[in-house]
C-alpha cells in the first residue's frame, strides 16, 4: 500500500530532466527575433562576446533563483512573497510579477506569430495564426505541470537534434574571417548588449519560482544542475549567434529581421538534405511554445490562489489566451512599434519587474533568515 502511494506521489512530481528542460527553454525563449535581433543590431560581430559576458553576469541573478527555489519553507514565490512582505505589500509585488510575466508571454506570443506570418505564411491573417498557435497552449495549460514537463522533455530531445543538424549543416559555410575585427565595438556597447542578454535569458527563468521545490523529483543539491542547464542553454544561444555571424557576416545579419532563420537556408547535409530551414527553425518555435505555456502557468497558479471556485479555475487559461490575442490586436498592430518597445522599455520592465523583484525577495529572505537565526 505504501509502495503504491509512493509511486503515485512520484507520478505527481516533475522529473529532474523535465525541470531542467524548462530552464533550457526559458533561457533560450527570446532567441528568435528578440534577444538575438537586438544584440545583432547593437554589436553585430561582437555578439558572442556580449553573450559570454551576459551569461557570466546572469549567474548572479541565477543564484537568487536557486535560493528562492530552495527556500526552507518549500513555498512557491506567491506564498513566499506574502510570507516575507505581509499580505498588502506581498500582494502588490505578486500583482507586479504577474503583470510582468504576462507581458513576457504576450511578447513571446506576438513574436512567434509574427515570425510564422512573415516567414511561413505571409498572406494569412495574423489572427488565424494566433488562434492556431493558441490551441496547443490552451490544451497544455489544461494539464498539470508534470504532464507539461513530459512534453518539455520530448521537445528537448527534438530541439537538441535540430540544433546539431543546424550546426553540422552550416559548418561548410563558415568563414572564419567574419569574426574579425574582434572587439570592434566600444566596451560600453558590448556591456549594454551583455546586460540585454542577461535580461533576456535569465528573467524568464524566474517564472519557474511558481513551482515549489517539493514538486520536483530529486531536487536536493539542484543548484549545480540549474547552473548547468542555464550554461548549456546559454552556450547553445551563443553558438547559434556566433555561427550566424560566421556564415552570413556582420553586414547581412544587420539587415535581416530574422538572421538566425535566414542562415538556416544555407544548411546542406551531405549535399543531399537541403532547404530544411522551415523544419529546423521549429526549434525556436518550440522554445517559445514551452515558455508561453510556463508563463501562463505562472499566472494560472497565482490566480488559483485567489479564485477558489474549481469550475472558474478551469477557464483561466482560456481567458488568459483570449486576453493575449485581444491585447495584441489592440496594441501590437504595427511591427515597428513593437521593435521600439523591445528596444526600450521591454528590457527595463523584465529586468526590474522580474529580476529586480525576485532579487528583492531573495534579499529579504536572506535578512529575515539571519535575524531569525540570531534570535534562535
Amino acid at each position, binding site marked *: 500500500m505504501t509502495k503504491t502511494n509512493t509511486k503515485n506521489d512520484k507520478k505527481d512530481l516533475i522529473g529532474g530532466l523535465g525541470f531542467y528542460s524548462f530552464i533550457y527553454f526559458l533561457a533560450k525563449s527570446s532567441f528568435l527575433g528578440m534577444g538575438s535581433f537586438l544584440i545583432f543590431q547593437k554589436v553585430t560581430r561582437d555578439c558572442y562576446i556580449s553573450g559570454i559576458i551576459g551569461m557570466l553576469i546572469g549567474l548572479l541573478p541565477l543564484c537568487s533563483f536557486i535560493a528562492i527555489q530552495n527556500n526552507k519553507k518549500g513555498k512557491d514565490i506567491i506564498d513566499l512573497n506574502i510570507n516575507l512582505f505581509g499580505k498588502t505589500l506581498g500582494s502588490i509585488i505578486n500583482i507586479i510579477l504577474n503583470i510582468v510575466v504576462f507581458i513576457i508571454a504576450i511578447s513571446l506570443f506576438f513574436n512567434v506569430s509574427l515570425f510564422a506570418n*512573415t*516567414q*511561413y*505564411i*505571409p*498572406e*494569412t*491573417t495574423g489572427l*488565424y495564426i494566433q*488562434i*492556431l498557435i493558441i*490551441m496547443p497552449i*490552451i490544451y497544455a495549460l489544461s494539464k498539470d505541470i508534470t504532464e507539461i514537463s513530459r512534453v518539455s522533455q520530448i521537445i528537448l530531445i527534438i530541439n537538441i537534434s535540430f540544433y546539431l543538424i543546424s550546426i553540422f549543416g552550416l559548418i561548410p559555410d563558415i568563414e572564419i*574571417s567574419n569574426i*574579425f*575585427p574582434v572587439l*570592434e565595438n566600444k566596451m560600453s556597447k558590448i556591456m549594454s548588449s551583455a546586460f540585454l542578454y542577461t535580461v533576456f535569458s535569465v528573467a524568464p527563468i524566474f517564472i519557474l519560482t511558481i513551482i515549489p521545490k517539493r514538486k520536483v523529483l530529486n531536487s536536493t543539491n539542484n543548484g549545480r544542475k540549474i547552473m548547468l542547464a542555464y550554461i548549456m542553454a546559454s552556450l547553445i544561444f551563443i553558438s547559434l549567434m556566433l555561427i550566424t555571424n560566421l556564415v*552570413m*557576416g556582420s*553586414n*547581412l545579419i*544587420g*539587415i535581416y529581421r530574422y538572421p538566425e532563420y*535566414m542562415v538556416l*537556408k*544555407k544548411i546542406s547535409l551531405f549535399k543531399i538534405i537541403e532547404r530544411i530551414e522551415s523544419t529546423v527553425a521549429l526549434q525556436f518555435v518550440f522554445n517559445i511554445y514551452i515558455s508561453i505555456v510556463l508563463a501562463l502557468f505562472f499566472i494560472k497558479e497565482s490566480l488559483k490562489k485567489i479564485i477558489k471556485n474549481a469550475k472558474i479555475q478551469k477557464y483561466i487559461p482560456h481567458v488568459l489566451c483570449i486576453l493575449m490575442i485581444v491585447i495584441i490586436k489592440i496594441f501590437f498592430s504595427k511591427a515597428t512599434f513593437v521593435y521600439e518597445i523591445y528596444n526600450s522599455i521591454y528590457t527595463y520592465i523584465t529586468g526590474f519587474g522580474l529580476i529586480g523583484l525576485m532579487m528583492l525577495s531573495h534579499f529579504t529572505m536572506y535578512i529575515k533568515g539571519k535575524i531569525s537565526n540570531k534570535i534562535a
Partner: protein
Amino acid sequence: MKIKILILIIVMLVVGGLDNSRELNDLAIVSGIAIDVGENGKYKVTAQILNSKKQGQGSSSGGASSKSSSVIEYRSEAATIQLALRNMIYESPKRLYLGHMELLIISEEIAESKLKSCLDFFVRDNEVNKEFLVVVARGCKSEDIIGIQTPLEQDPIKNIKESIITTSKYEGRTAKTDLASSLGVLLEEGVDLTLPSVIIEGDTKSGDKEENIEQSNTPTKIIISDLAYFKDGYMKGYLKSKDNISYNMVRGKIKSTIVETKDKKNKIAVEIYKLNSNVKPVYKDSKYEVDININCDGIITEFTQKADVTSEEELRKYEDLVGGAIKKNILEYVSNCQNVYCSDIVGYGAVFHKFLNKEYKKIQKDFGTEYFPKIKTNVKVNVNLDKEGGLVNNDKNEYKK
C-alpha cells in the same frame, strides 16, 4: 466535451482558412529573370517560366503539345520590379512564384547605374530564394540572353547556371556569386564587388529559334565571359583575361585550374587541384603592405617536348617555374586593380579593416584614394607537384624525340 468539440470546429475553420495554400498547379515557377532599362528609366523585366505541361511529359513523349516550348517568357515594364512582375498576370494565367529562381541577368546599364536598387526587391521579398546567381549580360540586352535556345539543357537559364558553376569549378575563370554573397560584398567595407558575365556569340535574332539547336555546331551560343568589376556598387568594366583566375586564386576560391608556363624548350601545363590562400596586412616602418601566401597542389599534365621529371631536383625546378608564373600573374592582377581598374576587388581595405583595425581606422577615409594604389604586395607561392601523373619515367617516352 462541448468545449473540445468547439475547439475542434474552430481549428478546422482556421486551418481551412489559411490564405497561403496554393496548389502546385496554380504556380508559374520562375527559373530566371532578366532586367534591362526600358523607356523613361523604367525596369524592363523578362521572366522565364518553366512550362509544367512540357516538363511533366519528358523529352520522349509526342503529341500535340510536344511542339510547345519547355520554357515560356513574359515581359513587362514598370517603375518597380515588383509591379513589373505583377503585371505579367495579364498574360499569365498563373501567379509567378520566385521560390525556385536560379538566375538573375542584369544588363550593363543596370549594373552601371542602379544595381543596389534593383536588388532591393529580391532581398526584401520573403518568397524569393536568396541563393540564385547574379550575372551581367555583356554587350547585349539581358532579355536576349534569356531566350537563346541551348542544345544540352532545355532550360536556357539552367544552361547558364550550370556553365558558371562548371567554369568556376574546373577553370576558376568566373565566380559563383549569389544574391546573398553579392549583397554581403556590397555592404562590406573595403571590398568591391565582381559579378560573372555572359555574352552572346552569333546572331541574337536567330538564337531563340528551334533551328539553333538542330545543328551540331550551334550558330548562336551563350559563353561565360570575364568578371565584371564594380566600384562603390557601380560597374566599371571587365577584368582582363588572366586576372579572372588570379582574382579567384587570391580569394582562395579555386577548386581546379590549369596553369600554363614554359622553360627554355618546353611548354608545360599543370593542373592545380588544391589551393589555399592567405592574405595578411602588414604595417612596417609607417608603410602599408600586404603579404599573399598561396599554397597549391598540382599535377603536371602536359609537356610539349620531351622532359625529365624523374629526379627530385627536376621536379622542384618545375615547381619553381609554375610558382613563378602564378606569382607574376597575381602581381599583375593586383597592379591592375590598383592602377587600371581602380577598384578594391582584391579586398585590401577589408583585410586591413579586419586584421589591422586600429591602423586602418586612421586611414579609413583616404584608404581608397591615397593608400590603396600605393600598397606594396608581397606574393609567396608554394607549389607542390608531388603527383607523377600517368607517365612515371619520361626517359622511356621515346615518342616525343
